[in-house]
C-alpha cells in the first residue's frame, strides 16, 4: 500500500509498478529528465554544464586507477609517477587523461560561468544555483592545488610552499596555522600524505555533494535560456511551457554532440600534446622536489594565473592607487548622490578609513586579501548586477563594453601570471588588477545606465 502518492506518474509496466511503489524511479526520471522542461533555443553555451559533469566523472574514474599504482610518500611519489608513465600498461594514458582532465575541467567551468554572466543565469531566481556553483569553483581550485603536489616534482613542491605560506599573513595564528596545514615546519612527507587524503577522499566527496545540490537548486527554479525570459509564462493546458522541450531526449542528444566535440579536442591534447608546451605539465615538474632550489620561473598552472598575478601585483604603489580610488569614491558619493547627510558622513568616514588602511599597511597581507576578494567578487555578482534584463542580447552598451574590458584584463592577468615578473609586467598587472576590481565595484552603476532593448515574450527560435 502506497502511503504518499502526491504524483500521478504512470509506471510503464507491472515490473516498474512494483519498483515505483518502493523507489520513485519513474517519478524522478520524469521530473528531472523526460518532463524537465528546458527552453528549446538553448545554444552551444549550454554544453558546458553537462561537460563539467562529464569531466568530473572522467577525473574520478582515472583517479581511481592512478591510486592503484601511486605511492603517497615523499621518498617514492616521484618515482611512482614515472613508473605509471613507463611500466604500468596504459598507465601513461590514464595519467595524461587525468592531468589533461584537470585543465579541461577549468576550461569548461570557466566557459560555464561566462555563459551564466552573459545570459543572466545568476540573477533572480537562480542566485543559489550561482552561489553553490561558486563554492564548487573554490572547491575545485582546492582539489586541483592539492592534486598538483602529488607528483612531488619541483614545481609541485614550491607551488605548495607559496600557497600554504599565504596563510602566514593571518594575524596571530598564521604561523601555527601553516604548521598545522603542513604537519611540519616545511613542506614534507606529512604534507604530501594529507594532501593525498584530501585530494582522493575529502574533496571529491564535497564536490559530488555540491554538484548534487547545484542540480537540485537548478531543477527547483528551471534552466535559463539565451533570451533570459521565463518560459513558464506561456504554458499549455497541461502546464507544459509552449517553448519548452523535455531534457530527455532533446538535450541529452544535443549534449552528446557537445560531448563529441569536447572529446575531439580533449583527446587531441591527450594524444598529441599532453604537456601543451609546458602549459598543462610544467617542465620544472619533470625534476623531483628539491627543498634547496626554487625553480627559476615559478608559476602555477594556467587556471590559477589571473589570481596569482593579482597576488604578485600587490605592492605599495598599487595600495596607493587603491587609497586614491577609495578617496575619490568617497568624494563622488558625497557630491553626486542624494543620500541623507548622515549616510553621506558615514560613507565619507568609511572611505577615509580605507584611505588610511591602504596607506599604512603592507603589500604582503593585501596580496592575499586581494586574491581572496577576487574570488569573493563572483559570489556577489547576482546582487551587483542591476540590469533590468538578463540576457546580453538585450543589455545596454555600457555593460557590453565593461564586460569586454574585463575579459581583456582577465586574459592579460592570466598571461602575466604565466611569466616571470619584470617592472613593466608588474605595472600592467597592477592596471589589470584595478580593472578587475573596478568591473565588480562599478557594476551596479554601469548595469543600470544605457538603453536596453525590448525583451520578447517568447524565446527567439528559428525552425530548421
Amino acid at each position, binding site marked *: 500500500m502506497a502511503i504518499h502518492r502526491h504524483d500521478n506518474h504512470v509506471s510503464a509496466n507491472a515490473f516498474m509498478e512494483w519498483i515505483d511503489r518502493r523507489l520513485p524511479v519513474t517519478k524522478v526520471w520524469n521530473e528531472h529528465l523526460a518532463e524537465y522542461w528546458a527552453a528549446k533555443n538553448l545554444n552551444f553555451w549550454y554544453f558546458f554544464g553537462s561537460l563539467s559533469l562529464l569531466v568530473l566523472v572522467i577525473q574520478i574514474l582515472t583517479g581511481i586507477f592512478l591510486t592503484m599504482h601511486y605511492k603517497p610518500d615523499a621518498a617514492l611519489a616521484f618515482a611512482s609517477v614515472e613508473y605509471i608513465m613507463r611500466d604500468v600498461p596504459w598507465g601513461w594514458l590514464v595519467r595524461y587523461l587525468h592531468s589533461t582532465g584537470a585543465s579541461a575541467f577549468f576550461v569548461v567551468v570557466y566557459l560555464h560561468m561566462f555563459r551564466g554572466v552573459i545570459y543572466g543565469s545568476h540573477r533572480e531566481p537562480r542566485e543559489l544555483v550561482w552561489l553553490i556553483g561558486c563554492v564548487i569553483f573554490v572547491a575545485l581550485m582546492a582539489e586541483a592545488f592539492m592534486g598538483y603536489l602529488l607528483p612531488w616534482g619541483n614545481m609541485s613542491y614550491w607551488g605548495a610552499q607559496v600557497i600554504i605560506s599565504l596563510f602566514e599573513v593571518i594575524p596571530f595564528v598564521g604561523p601555527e596555522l601553516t*604548521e598545522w596545514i603542513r604537519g611540519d615546519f*616545511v613542506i614534507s612527507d606529512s604534507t604530501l600524505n594529507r594532501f593525498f587524503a584530501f585530494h582522493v577522499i575529502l574533496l571529491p566527496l564535497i564536490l559530488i555533494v555540491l554538484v548534487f545540490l547545484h542540480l537540485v537548486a537548478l531543477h527547483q527554479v528551471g534552466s535559463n535560456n539565451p533570451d533570459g525570459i521565463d518560459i513558464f509564462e506561456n504554458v499549455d493546458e497541461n502546464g507544459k511551457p509552449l517553448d519548452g522541450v523535455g531534457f530527455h531526449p532533446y538535450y541529452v542528444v544535443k549534449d552528446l554532440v557537445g560531448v563529441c566535440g569536447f572529446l575531439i579536442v580533449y583527446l587531441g591534447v591527450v594524444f598529441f600534446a599532453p604537456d601543451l608546451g609546458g602549459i598543462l605539465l610544467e617542465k620544472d615538474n619533470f625534476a623531483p622536489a628539491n*627543498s634547496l632550489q*626554487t625553480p627559476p620561473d615559478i608559476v602555477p598552472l594556467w587556471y590559477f594565473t589571473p589570481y596569482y598575478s593579482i597576488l604578485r601585483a600587490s*605592492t605599495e604603489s598599487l595600495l596607493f592607487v587603491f587609497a586614491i580610488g577609495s578617496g575619490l569614491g568617497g568624494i563622488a558619493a558625497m557630491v553626486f548622490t542624494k543620500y541623507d547627510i548622515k549616510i553621506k558622513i558615514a560613507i565619507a568616514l568609511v572611505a577615509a578609513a580605507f584611505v588610511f588602511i591602504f596607506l599604512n599597511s603592507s603589500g604582503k597581507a593585501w596580496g592575499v586579501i586581494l586574491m581572496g576578494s577576487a574570488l569573493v567578487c563572483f559570489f556577489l555578482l547576482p546582487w551587483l548586477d542591476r540590469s533590468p534584463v538578463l540576457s546580453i542580447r538585450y543589455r545596454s552598451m555600457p555593460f557590453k563594453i565593461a564586460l569586454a574590458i574585463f575579459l581583456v584584463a582577465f586574459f592579460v592577468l592570466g598571461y602575466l601570471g604565466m611569466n*616571470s615578473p619584470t617592472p613593466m609586467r608588474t605595472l600592467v598587472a597592477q592596471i589589470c588588477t584595478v580593472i578587475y576590481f573596478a568591473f565588480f565595484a562599478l557594476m551596479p552603476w554601469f548595469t543600470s545606465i544605457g538603453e536596453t532593448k525590448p525583451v520578447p515574450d517568447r524565446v527567439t527560435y528559428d525552425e530548421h
Partner: protein
Amino acid sequence: MTDNHESEEHASDTSIENKKRRRFLTGITAGFGAIGGGFAVTPFVLSMSPSERAKNAGAPVEYDYSRIQEGQMIKVEWRGKPVVLLKRSADMIAGLEKIESNLADPDSLVSLQPSYAQNQARADSNKPNLLVMLGVCTHLGCSPVEKLALGPDPEMGEDSQGGFFCPCHGSKFDLSGRVYKNVPATSNMEIPPYKYEGDLIKIGEDEGRLA
C-alpha cells in the same frame, strides 16, 4: 466527569509547561551534544599538527666554512630549509652602502636576526663578510636566486650592487638579504642563530650569545 473535566483543564496548563520543559531539555541536550562533538573533533584536528618525529628533526648542522672561496656562495640544508653561506668580497661589502636608500628596512628593525647580526652586513662582526642567512623569501617562502655580479641586471635593476631575486613574485634583496622598497616582501631575509667553532660553522645553535 468533573474529574475528567478538571484533568483536561490541567492538561492544557501542563502542555504549555511541558512544551517549555521539552524546549529546555532539547536545548540542554543539543548544547551538551555540541560540546561532546567539540571534544570528539579535537583529537582529529590535533593529529594534523607536526608529529614528534618532525619536531625532533631540527638539530643544528655544521659546515667547514674555510672551503668557501671569496665571492662564492653555497647552500646547506637546516631543518629542511636552505641556508645560504656567502663569503662576500670587499666590493660586495662596499656595495651595501650604495643602495641603502632603495631599501625598506636598511637597519633591520622589523626583521628577524640574532642581535649580533643586526648591522649593515647582517653578520657576526668577527667575520662580517660571511653571510649566513635562511635562503627563504619573507614573502611566501620561495628560495631567492643569487645575483652575485655587481652592475646592471635585468631583474635587479640598473644600479644593482648584486643581491637576491625571488623568481616567484619579484621581491629583491641586497647581498645582506635586506629587502628593497616596493616589492611584495616587506622584511629582510631571516638570519638563523649560528656560531663558529674553529673552521666549522654551526648553524642552528648560538648558546644564547648576544655578540
